[in-house]
């Protein structure tokens, strides 16, 4: 009975999807936790400090050699942080708009995870007819889906700012929505050029194209640059962290938040970083492919290898995110908007036109699928 | 029970009427504006359904246009409402009284 049920393609589809969702979710949560650690470590490195190096459960120090090393690496710090968030008093100020105050963190964090659904983490796990693509939802309009979901992320921040019913969070919320909408445009336009080259919106096909023809960053360096910078703005990371900029707005939209609700915003920010990195890897850096590993995997091990390649590239991008944060000063708000509207958008448009012209001249009209 | 075109159309019509009700009953310009968006969306749903069941894409192209127009309309409309608010400190249709007999 189980056999027959499992041979039904729909059930199979649902089952595999569930597994993939669970795995991705688990992995990303772990990544988030350790991204925080990496952030602290990198910042410590850049500022010539040590970083977290002593939090540990009592028994770990007892383990010889490995134990002290792990503690010094701060490997347990994220757990302690998580525990702190859970145990801290969940304080809700009296004057906030309750419903939205509660909803906002959830709304902020969900889109970040939904984005990951269309990203092809690897080629496929095994060859043959039963091969599962390493992507949760293989949509033909994948990138649009991503942008759609990403754009929903604004709501969390805007609502958080508004529902806090106090000055600084509100300013932070307004700033961030303006900033995110503005840079979404530049971001969206920068990837149009990529689609012009590939001729498809499906992320899997984009990666396959790169596997065959080389990485997109070679074809579209301008687009990559635009996307990278926009991604910083979209994730509200330094140098574009206007919504929170502590020195002006206390803490921005999450000033009034504490405990687990604050943790959710935190989670959202890092999940967004991961999603952006994954997206950049997929669009510009060849996804799971390497110059000499172009073909989709024919075996389980090949599939795992591709997965590994993808994760490695993604980690590099994550480190870039973190590194930039500690290297560059914060922009002024008007400079930020100026950069977005008067530099990036025209640049992205020009890039599209140039790309289209080159394509038309080189290949003639009507290329693509 | 199979879902047919009529199901979609009924949903669309109901949505349209909800929007219309909002326009008639609500007094806040912004909410009225949202109700109008609802009406446009009802038209979008009907167009997509017709497009699917008539087996061509013309309706979907139309939806594309409608979304574009709606975006433009909202942009202009909201800036106008902001201008109104700056001038009159209200966004309430009953306060729009400077043009009367």
């Amino acid at each position: 009975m189980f056999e027959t049920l499992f041979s039904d393609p729909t059930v199979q589809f649902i089952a595999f999807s569930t597994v993939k969702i669970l795995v991705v979710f688990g992995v990303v949560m772990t990544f988030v936790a350790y991204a925080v650690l990496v952030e602290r470590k990198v910042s410590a490195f850049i500022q010539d400090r040590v970083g977290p190096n002593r939090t540990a459960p009592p028994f770990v120090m007892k383990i010889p050699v490995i134990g002290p090393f792990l503690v010094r690496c701060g490997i347990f710090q994220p757990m302690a942080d998580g525990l702190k968030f859970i145990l801290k008093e969940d304080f809700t100020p009296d004057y906030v708009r309750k419903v939205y105050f509660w909803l906002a963190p959830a709304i902020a964090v969900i889109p970040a995870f939904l984005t990951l659904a269309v990203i092809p983490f690897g080629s496929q796990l095994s060859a043959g007819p039963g091969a599962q693509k390493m992507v949760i939802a293989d949509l033909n309009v994948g990138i649009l889906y991503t942008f759609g979901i990403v754009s929903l992320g604004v709501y969390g921040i805007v609502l958080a700012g508004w529902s806090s019913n106090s000055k600084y969070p509100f300013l932070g919320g307004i700033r961030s929505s303006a900033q995110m909408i503005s840079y979404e445009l530049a971001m969206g336009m920068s990837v149009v050029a990529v689609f012009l080259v590939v001729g498809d919106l499906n992320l899997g096909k984009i990666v396959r194209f790169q596997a065959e023809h080389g990485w997109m960053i070679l074809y579209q360096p301008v687009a990559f640059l635009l996307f990278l910078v926009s991604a910083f703005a979209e994730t509200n990371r330094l140098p574009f962290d206007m919504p929170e900029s502590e020195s002006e707005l206390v803490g921005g939209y999450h000033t009034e938040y504490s405990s687990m609700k604050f943790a959710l915003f935190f989670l959202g920010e890092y999940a967004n970083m991961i999603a952006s990195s994954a997206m950049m890897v997929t669009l510009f850096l060849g996804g799971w492919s390497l110059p000499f590993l172009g073909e989709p995997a024919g075996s389980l091990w090949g599939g795992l290898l591709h997965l590994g390649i993808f994760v490695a590239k993604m980690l590099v991008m994550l480190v870039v995110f973190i590194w930039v944060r500690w290297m560059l000063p914060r922009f002024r708000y008007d400079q930020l908007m100026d950069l977005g509207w008067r530099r990036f958008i025209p640049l992205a448009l020009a890039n599209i036109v140039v790309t289209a012209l080159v394509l038309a001249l080189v290949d003639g009209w009507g290329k693509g699928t | 029970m199979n879902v047919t075109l009529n199901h979609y159309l009924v949903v669309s019509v109901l949505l349209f009427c909800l929007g219309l009700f909002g326009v008639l009953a609500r007094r806040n310009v912004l909410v009225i504006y949202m109700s109008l968006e609802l009406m446009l969306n009802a038209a979008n749903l009907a167009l997509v359904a017709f497009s699917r069941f008539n087996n061509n894409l013309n309706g979907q192209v139309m939806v594309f246009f409608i979304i574009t127009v709606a975006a433009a309309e909202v942009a202009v409309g909201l800036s106008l409402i902001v201008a109104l608010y700056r001038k009159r400190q209200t966004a309430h249709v009953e306060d729009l009284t400077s043009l009367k007999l």
Partner: protein
Amino acid sequence: MPEFTDLLFFVFAGLTLLFGFLCVANPLSRNPVTSAMFLVLTIISMAGLFVLLHAFFLAAVQILVYAGAVMVVFLFVIMLLDLKEEARRKLNRVALTAGVLAVSGLAAILVRAVTAARPAALALKAGPLAEGDTAPLGRILFQSYLLPFEILSILLLVAMVGVILLSKKDLR
């Protein structure tokens, strides 16, 4: 598995209507922000209906443009203006009843019209043409419908100029 998609239809349709109702006539709150948020939800569930109708591109655009941009701007403005008046105004019950009656009458007529027009058993006969994918949609958009497309591009320019004119500070 047709029953599954049918089920999805009823779920999405129900949600669309419910959220739509809560947007225009929320009995609990007359706060414009609530309306806006329910409108966002309506739009998202409608995108689900679009997917069921194989209009993938439009489903994405619907979320991207409506939910992601248009409604954010809405929210933005509502918050900037911080409207509280609606709450303290009394409802005009006569107008409300009249509105309900008129609109439900219209709804009855239209529903009758759409249900009477076609045999209810009309089945899905969607071929490959009606798949709302990007490429075919783009082709038809840029070939057959180029003219309205260009007109709307000018419309967007007009909207842009208009917004700037209407909202920028007076430069004297």
